[in-house]
């Protein structure tokens, strides 16, 4: 009891904490506010951040990361993690580029093939985790090696350059509808679609249930294994889409393409407010997290801060975001224990 009293009485419950708590509770909104503020500040020094060319470049790159982050967010909500997403993206990007440069399939079928390949890779993750009960961090660490190894095996040190690809393929990256890049429309459609699925369907609710309380979910009759399998499959599918987008965006693809993207994707998920221990968070938040991180990278270049700071800043943003989450959780627990105290 003395312990509980001590917790309630901590001076940390000041206005700053309350503000941080409120900010963290409305993560999507606060991310947008911080993003707009940051862009405004940078625009004072480097107005070209608001040029339509720059906005297009940033949003197109952010869209690729966001698509992968949406799948990752769903996996993390179920209290799992998928470290193999960068290998999925790399393998899909190379496979599609290889198929196209050899003229085996027309562009739409090649893209479909890439997305299907991503789905298969995700399903393999799902089987290993859900059927063989391998902890997801171990399973996807393994498939990260395996998928990247397959990538190296088929690439064999070669690379496919943009000139070997059909012109219509790489042009998709610059295509717009009503002035909005197609990539952005794809990412928004996927974000809205999966947000609706998570909010409104039985499956969506069971994703959160499995993540927040596996035992309770089992008692309610939710088949956790099935939910886990489906979520990993979706993550693979979206990784496949992100891989195809990566290939379109960068044109030149080799066996190491998309290396290190998993870090960005998980950073986007964490910054977007998804609890790394599962059970809470939204895919919209994850997509906004991707946009936020991409803009930070862009802003660094525009204010001519050394590019070498980018990585360090990424790390700081992750640490700040997760610290903010901890403040929120503690504040919540304090308010609960405060109400229970006699």
């Amino acid at each position, binding site marked *: 009891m003395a312990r509980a009293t001590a917790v309630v009485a901590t001076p940390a419950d000041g206005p700053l904490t309350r503000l941080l708590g409120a900010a963290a509770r409305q993560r999507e909104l606060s991310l947008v506010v911080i993003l707009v503020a940051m862009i405004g500040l940078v625009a004072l020094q480097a107005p070209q951040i608001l040029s339509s060319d720059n906005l297009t470049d940033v949003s197109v790159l952010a869209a690729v990361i966001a698509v992968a982050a949406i799948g990752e967010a769903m996996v993390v909500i179920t209290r799992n*993690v998928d470290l193999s997403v960068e290998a999925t993206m790399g393998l899909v990007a190379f496979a599609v580029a290889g198929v196209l440069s050899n003229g085996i399939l027309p562009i739409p079928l090649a893209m479909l093939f890439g997305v299907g390949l991503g789905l298969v890779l995700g399903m393999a993750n799902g089987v*290993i985790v859900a059927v*063989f*009960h*391998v*902890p997801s*961090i*171990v*399973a996807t*660490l*393994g*498939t*990260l*090696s*395996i998928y*990247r*190894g*397959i990538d*190296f*095996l088929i690439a*064999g040190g070669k690379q496919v350059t943009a000139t070997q690809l059909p012109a219509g393929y790489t042009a998709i990256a610059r295509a717009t509808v009503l002035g909005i890049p197609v990539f952005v429309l794809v990412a928004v459609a996927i974000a809205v679609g999966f947000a609706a699925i998570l909010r409104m369907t039985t499956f969506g609710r069971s994703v959160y249930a499995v993540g927040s309380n596996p035992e309770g979910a089992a008692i309610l009759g939710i088949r956790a294994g099935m939910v886990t399998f489906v979520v990993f499959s979706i993550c693979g599918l979206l990784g496949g889409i992100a891989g195809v987008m990566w290939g379109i965006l960068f044109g030149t693809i080799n066996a190491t393409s998309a290396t290190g993207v998993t*870090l960005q994707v*998980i*950073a986007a998920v*964490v910054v977007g407010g998804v609890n*790394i*221990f599962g059970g809470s968070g939204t895919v919209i938040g994850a997509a906004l997290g991707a946009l936020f991180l991409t803009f930070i990278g862009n802003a660094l270049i525009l204010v001519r801060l*050394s590019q*070498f*700071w*980018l*990585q*360090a*800043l*990424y*790390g*700081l943003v*992750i*640490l700040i975001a*997760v*610290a903010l989450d*901890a403040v929120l959780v*503690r504040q919540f627990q304090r308010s609960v224990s405060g109400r229970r105290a006699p």
Partner: protein
Amino acid sequence: MTGVGGLLGRLARWEVLLAVFLVVLIAIGAAVSPVFLSGRNFANLIAAVIEVAIMSLPMALIIIAGEIDLSVESMVGLAAAILGALYSAGVPLPVAIVAVMIVGGLGGLLNGVLVTRVGLPSLVVTLGTLALYRGLALVVLESRGVSNFPSWFTGFGFGTVPGLPIPWPFTIYLVLAVVLGIVLHRTWIGRQLYAMGKNQSAARFSGIRVARVKLRLFVLSGVVAALAGVILVARMSSARADVGSGLTLVVITIVLLGGVDIFGGRGTIPGVVLAFFTLAVMGNVLRLTNVSSDIQSIAVGLLLIVSVVIPTLARRVKSAIDRAQGNRNRPTPTVGGPSEVVAS
């Protein structure tokens, strides 16, 4: 029969399987290549992976205690960058090495404080510092490379103990493995690590200072990662900020392959040592047989998954057998002696 003996059998099984696999690999290596069993080849195969080997030891303790440190590969880079920057600025090398080790300790301290005092999950904290430390390394040295290290230093990196096919850094690994092995398996500190890995709250309520022990583990991990960075610089005789990228995955692979449970509370140092030799020999055999090195990455991934699947399946088969036997014994539960209680 199913009591202590069964328990020991279960614990020993994975290490034995690993040892058998290692012997098979060595036999294959000896059969396909005449140089495989030479001392020179042994020195080469060890030296190629000595940094990850050294880092796998503290990582094993951290994972057994229920945490994880993803930032080690970036600490290798940060150590290399600071060592290079200090040396090129005219700081005597021994002083620079000590400074780098202190930086490693501070980096580990930051991880440990964020995990144990602020209460953040180590997976996310060290993901953040994975980016942060690599970023700092890049800020310190940018894209420069520093070489021209004195010969005593580079000689330590790729030289061997006189008269023996043992690279100098391997002696550090051996000492560390013996010390940490004794600490983990023969002292109260080790028992505390298992206890907090199995059940952190229970460990805390039984008087173990969980936060303090974990903090020290993270500091140890940071110092050892910095040491690995120094060794890598000596071995390559050049310092760059991007060295060590991707090593964390290999380190964790060795630890998990060695039978350490990713959720903590289970694992042994001999297992981790065996896993290191298995990976090192496998890479060497694949190289000697001119099999594409791409296969190695696939084989490592498969091995990692199989290392978890096999014990899980074995446990399931065993519990199914136990259940079948238990059903046969069940008709007379009230008159059953102690032996039957154990059996069920």
